[in-house]
């Protein structure tokens, strides 16, 4: 067989395949890649911008206010003649509204997720999911209106003494607002649990509820944790609902029936006024923002750790 082989007569040695005509396109390819890379790094620049601005203004702030006062003083009256710079009242306001919101969103979101993932037919799921998603599409300022002018009056029928501004109705409304975040991410996590795990439970005679609660839910816990963390971040950072319905008065209280300002509401309040640029009053909002960001970050990291711990490999 080998004897048969005739190579083509090739006088030319190795011919370079890259002809000059290909050079320009190559250059264009490289330029485009650089451009796209630049776009990707823009997001990093935004992070630097956020951290940079908050850190810069906060450093200036803490040159005039001691960190110890900031973290331990029980009063927040930066715009008064007798200025106090204790962040605790704002933190407590944020924590109370967040807690109320989570008390609504986590049970509701989880139950809806279980129902949609384990009980509902495809048809129901396809109708309900977009409808639920609309809940999160409603602008937050509309929710604020709803909290102030629907939920609070409704609650005042139950507690006649409830003030017009209160953390309870703000928290409740935020809770409803974040239900779709919790439910849709949890549902995705539960639907990712492979069917054979469910079948194992059914084969042992478990009901759907038992399967859902004892097999599916624990297996999906990693993803469900992510859903809860998402909900917490949303609740902490929510601004308009609390600014409209919870009042603007910084009060150190854990009672949701009282009015109190959150960190976000305070930032709004200052932004609406005319605090001069560069004053301590102006810098308080950056210090508050830094606190807010740190808290969100903290919850996210905690969530990440939990998520890793619960991760299951099917």
């Amino acid at each position, binding site marked *: 067989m080998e004897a048969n082989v005739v190579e083509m007569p090739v006088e030319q040695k190795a011919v370079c395949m890259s002809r000059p005509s290909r050079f320009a396109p190559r250059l264009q*390819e490289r330029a485009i890649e650089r*451009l*796209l*890379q630049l*776009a*990707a790094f*823009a*997001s*990093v620049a*935004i*992070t630097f*911008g*956020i951290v940079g*601005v*908050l850190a*810069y*203004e906060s450093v200036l702030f803490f040159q005039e206010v001691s960190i110890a006062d900031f973290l331990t003083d029980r009063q927040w009256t930066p715009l008064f003649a007798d200025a106090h710079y204790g962040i605790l009242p704002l933190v407590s306001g944020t924590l109370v509204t967040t807690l109320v919101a989570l008390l609504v969103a986590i*049970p*509701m979101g989880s*139950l*809806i997720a*279980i*129902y949609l993932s384990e*009980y509902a037919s495809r048809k129901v799921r396809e109708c309900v999911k*977009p409808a*639920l*998603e*609309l*809940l999160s*599409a409603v*602008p937050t*300022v*509309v929710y*604020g*209106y*709803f909290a102030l*002018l*629907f939920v609070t009056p409704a609650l005042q029928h139950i507690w006649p003494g409830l003030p017009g501004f209160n953390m309870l109705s703000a928290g409740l409304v935020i809770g*409803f607002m974040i239900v779709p975040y919790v439910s849709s991410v949890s549902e995705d996590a539960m639907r990712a649990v492979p069917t054979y795990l469910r079948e194992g439970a059914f084969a042992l005679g478990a*009901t*759907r*509820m*038992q399967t859902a609660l004892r097999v599916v839910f624990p297996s999906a816990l990693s993803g469900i944790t992510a859903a809860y963390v998402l909900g917490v*971040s949303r609740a*902490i*950072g*929510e*601004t*308009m609902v609390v*600014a*409209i319905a919870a009042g603007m008065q910084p009060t150190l209280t854990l009672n949701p029936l009282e009015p109190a300002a959150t960190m*976000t509401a305070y*930032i*709004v309040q200052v*932004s609406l006024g005319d605090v001069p*640029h560069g004053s301590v009053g102006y810098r308080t*909002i950056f210090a508050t*923002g830094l606190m*807010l960001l740190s808290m969100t970050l903290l919850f*996210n990291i905690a969530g990440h750790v939990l998520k890793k711990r619960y991760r299951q490999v099917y």
Partner: protein
Amino acid sequence: MTPIQRKIARHKSLDRFFAFEGLTVMIVALLVLLALVGQLMFDGLTRLSWQFLTSFPSRFPAQAGIVSAWVGTILVMLVTALAAIPLGVGAAIYLEEYAPNNWATELIEINIANLAGVPSIVYGLMALGLLVYQFHLGQSFLTAGLTLGMLILPMVIIATREAIRSVPPYVREAAYALGATKWQTVRDHVVPYSMGSILTGMILALSRAVGETAPLITVGALSFIAFLPHPPWQEAFPFVSFEWLFDPFTVMPIQMFNWVSRPQEEFHVNAAAAGLILLAMTLAMNAVAIVIRARFRKRIHW
């Protein structure tokens, strides 16, 4: 009944109860949505009129309107879209198709995930410190649009990446096997085939931006603007004008917030009417997104 039958019966009724509970909770959530829309309609529907749409804000609630607000919303969205979409789609393409597997890529990925969790008001603070006072863009449409653009950038990136990822690798290989370059493959195949989901993601992100209030308050939106910005066109060459970019701005949710936080009930009626229009805007965008998704899904199915 034998004990085991009794046990099964009990389990079954528990199961039914649990299903019932799930259904109830779901209905409650949907009822809240209904109540919210109902309340807005009840309060605001009568206030909707041509006069309301074409009037400037006023001290007198019955004469006030939202023309500066909705014009403002449209212009701010224009800037937002022009800022976020090219950047976001570009970043997504880079991450999905080009990025090498190294620490820089990982940094970008982690960064995007974290940015998506940053409260929106923090973007406002950043824009205030950077765009308003560092870059001297003023409390303008440009600042507002860029602020919201940065806010929705992670959303745009995440949605686009998901869309691009749904294009199966064998389609890319088909293009490469014909001798296409990476950019040709992306431009002629990957992006066109995922266009439906990309568009859907863009619209959803913009609908989120339409309702954003807090960051715009922070950068200094005005709630009382009794004039329209400079028109984006002019008589003389080149016929487009960018003067409006530096005009003071307001938007729909700011206007609504302003009215809702006033004590007089007549202003609350205005707030409800503005809320209805705002809601209609966001819901319409969501509806368009759903239609586009369905349309494209029918055309391309892998």
